[in-house]
């Protein structure tokens, strides 16, 4: 290896290898993804963000929120559950079938339908049991369950996938979780006022929180007793005697947080859909 030219060609070959394998191949596979039309609602997914939320994405990037918060839900796998969707009218017969399948508490399940009867099954086991229970008016269905600590913690109902990030720039996946995952912040139904208060003083909404306060995203003004507060001011209890109003940056940031939602059911990442009473009634009607 004393030949400089040969050495150079070897190095050049390695550059080329990494280009083909880790830049070009992924680009071909996922770089040209397009929004899809959801089967359930007919909407395109993902939908572009509103202008304010898009500005908020810039605030999120500029504050470096990604240093502590991830935006990806991981799923360790799936298994299947059997749900009793409708117990029909022949209850004794159903109870007997359930006894034969060694399902305890049959009576309780029958009165509570729709209810989960069994969990942690493979597709084959679950559909076998469900077909035996489906008899006459009694209906049992197989329901997919997503697994993993992230999902158990309520950070999302399914793993996040390529499709979820189509309109993000920069994509802020994050590599450290000192704060909770935010990929589904918008689905948590946190009121905007509470989210703003959390930004201003995290410990006031979550006493043990380690999050640094973002007071510089707010205006603070001394206020006399009885003086009228601005409409968007934080609750008077946050800092008595002062009126704390969010800057446009803070409001944009919260709008962005509210827009974080990766809960649409996709072909590659279905969301568990257990049967509900009303949904069962509708398709059951035209059957005969």
């Amino acid at each position: 290896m004393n030949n400089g030219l040969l050495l150079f060609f070897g190095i050049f070959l390695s550059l080329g290898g990494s280009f083909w394998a880790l830049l070009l191949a992924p680009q071909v596979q996922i770089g040209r993804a397009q929004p899809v039309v959801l089967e359930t609602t007919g909407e395109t997914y993902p939908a572009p963000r509103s202008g304010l939320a898009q500005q908020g994405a810039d605030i999120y990037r500029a504050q470096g929120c990604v240093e502590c918060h991830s935006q990806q839900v991981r799923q360790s796998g799936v298994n299947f559950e059997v749900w009793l969707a409708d117990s029909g009218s022949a209850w004794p017969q159903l109870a007997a079938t359930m006894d034969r399948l060694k399902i305890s508490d049959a009576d309780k399940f029958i009165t509570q339908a729709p209810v989960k009867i069994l969990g942690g099954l493979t597709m084959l086991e679950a559909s076998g049991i469900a077909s035996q229970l489906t008899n006459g008016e009694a209906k049992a269905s197989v329901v997919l369950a997503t697994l993993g600590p992230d999902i158990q913690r309520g950070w999302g109902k399914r793993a996040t996938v390529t499709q979820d990030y189509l309109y993000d720039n920069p994509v802020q996946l994050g590599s450290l979780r000192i704060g909770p995952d935010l990929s589904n912040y918008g689905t948590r139904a946190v009121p905007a006022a509470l989210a703003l208060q959390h930004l201003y003083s995290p410990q006031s909404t979550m006493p043990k929180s380690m999050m640094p306060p973002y007071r510089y995203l707010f205006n603070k003004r001394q206020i006399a007793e009885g003086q009228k507060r601005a409409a968007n001011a934080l609750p008077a209890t946050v800092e008595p005697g002062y009126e704390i109003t969010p800057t446009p940056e803070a409001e944009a940031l919260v709008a962005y947080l509210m827009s974080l939602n990766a809960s649409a059911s996709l072909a590659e990442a279905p969301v568990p859909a257990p049967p509900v009473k009303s949904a069962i009634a509708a398709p059951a009607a035209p059957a005969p």
Partner: protein
Amino acid sequence: MSAPSSTSLQETEASGGVCNADEHDSVAEIDASCRWPLLLLFTSGILWLVLGTVLALIAAIKLHKGDFLADTSWLTLGRIRPASMNAVLYGFSSQVGIGVALWLMCRLGHVKLAFQWPVIVAWKLWNAAVTIGVVAILAGATTGFEWLEMPRGVAGMLFVAYALFGISLVATFAMRRESEVFPSQWYLLAAAFWFPWIYSAASYLLIVDPVRGALQASISGWFTGNLVTLWLTPIGLAGIFYFLPRLSGQPLHSRELASFGFWVLLFVGNFGGLTGLIGGPVPKWMPAVSTAANVCLLVAVISNAWNWRETCRASCTTSHRNAWKTDSVLRFIFFGAFAYLVHGVIAALMSMPTVASVTNFTYAVVARNNLVLHGFVGMVLFGCLYYIIPRLVQVNWPSESSIRAHFLCSAIGVLLLSLGLGIGGVLQGLKLANASVPFMDVVRGTVPFVGLSTLGVLLLLIGQLLFLSNYLKLLRAFAEPMVRAVCSVCCGCGSTAKPGVRS
């Protein structure tokens, strides 16, 4: 003769045994050709390191106490952490690494530094770019991509500056007068081409003309992985491959083994960056390729370690037997080599999907990065600096005990930082994987370990300040005769200019 420390100039320069001074530039001439460009690179590199460590210290304190310095947007945690990383990566590791690379190329090729002025121009441009970049990150103009946070214009400046460095490095290699190409030169040449490739490709695809969606995450992972594996690691390895045989007074055990390790690193190592995406929103084959690559890379790590071990073992029979006890440079290099081995094993472990499902998203990843940046690359670079700087200026280090203290501080600092965050990270990951532990308890549980790492950062800082003060004293001793000469020319008062300084 007790083995003289290689931090001083007494060590015989001919011990490499390949230098025939007649036809080549003499070692002193070669060192002199490197003097000014390298002193500039090293000085600013050290200052960046100190700044980066101070920022890291502030960030570490903020992880205990969120309220600390919270009212200044410039000092918010999410800006300080990337600013600190960028200062260390581009200000210190890359800059000092380039300096060391230039020197090694000169020494190994027995040739003077090519293109000295462009290197100085590049130094100005590089430091201007890093300055603007770090300020921009603190001002909130970050791009949001890990280790590539500096804004678009700065990326262009850095690239141009690097091009000048790279031209000098490759030209020095091309003009070499030694027919044998030493392993260190392979690594340096590879680094010289890999850095511009990954930096320009990642900057273009992420910042200039961004690709869409999750592909950004895979390119970002490709860049961060390769910045370590094929830019900083080759420079560190070049240092180890040069100094280990040289200071232990033995030829390298096996050139073939070194060549094997080199090609494995080059062709396999570059696929290892996507382990952060295990279970993430990209096609499964991508992180799987990285897992395989990191495990294969272990072969290169072990073959290198074996090579060094055999080299050192051979020296046990010679007068260099206890060299590492007296030789500060060798101590730094040894520590770096050991950290390289440990990092290789840990990186392979942490890319296993079962392990990664615990360690990803935890401080364990931070610990691994610190181990490679401060433990391996940082320590090797400091070893190189302790050897190179006295030879550039022909002045000995003013304080040998300060060097020993620096080593001790750095070594303990790296251990506290890596072990503290590593153990804390694994515990954090185990708790994260158990959904019955409330998230708040998971985060609170990391605090004592962050405390250990803060202590580690503090020790690193003390070590760096010891280096800095020693370095400044050395520079003063170096500059004094010149200042005197200038004074005596200008006003004829040179003999009394600084009475009593040199007693």
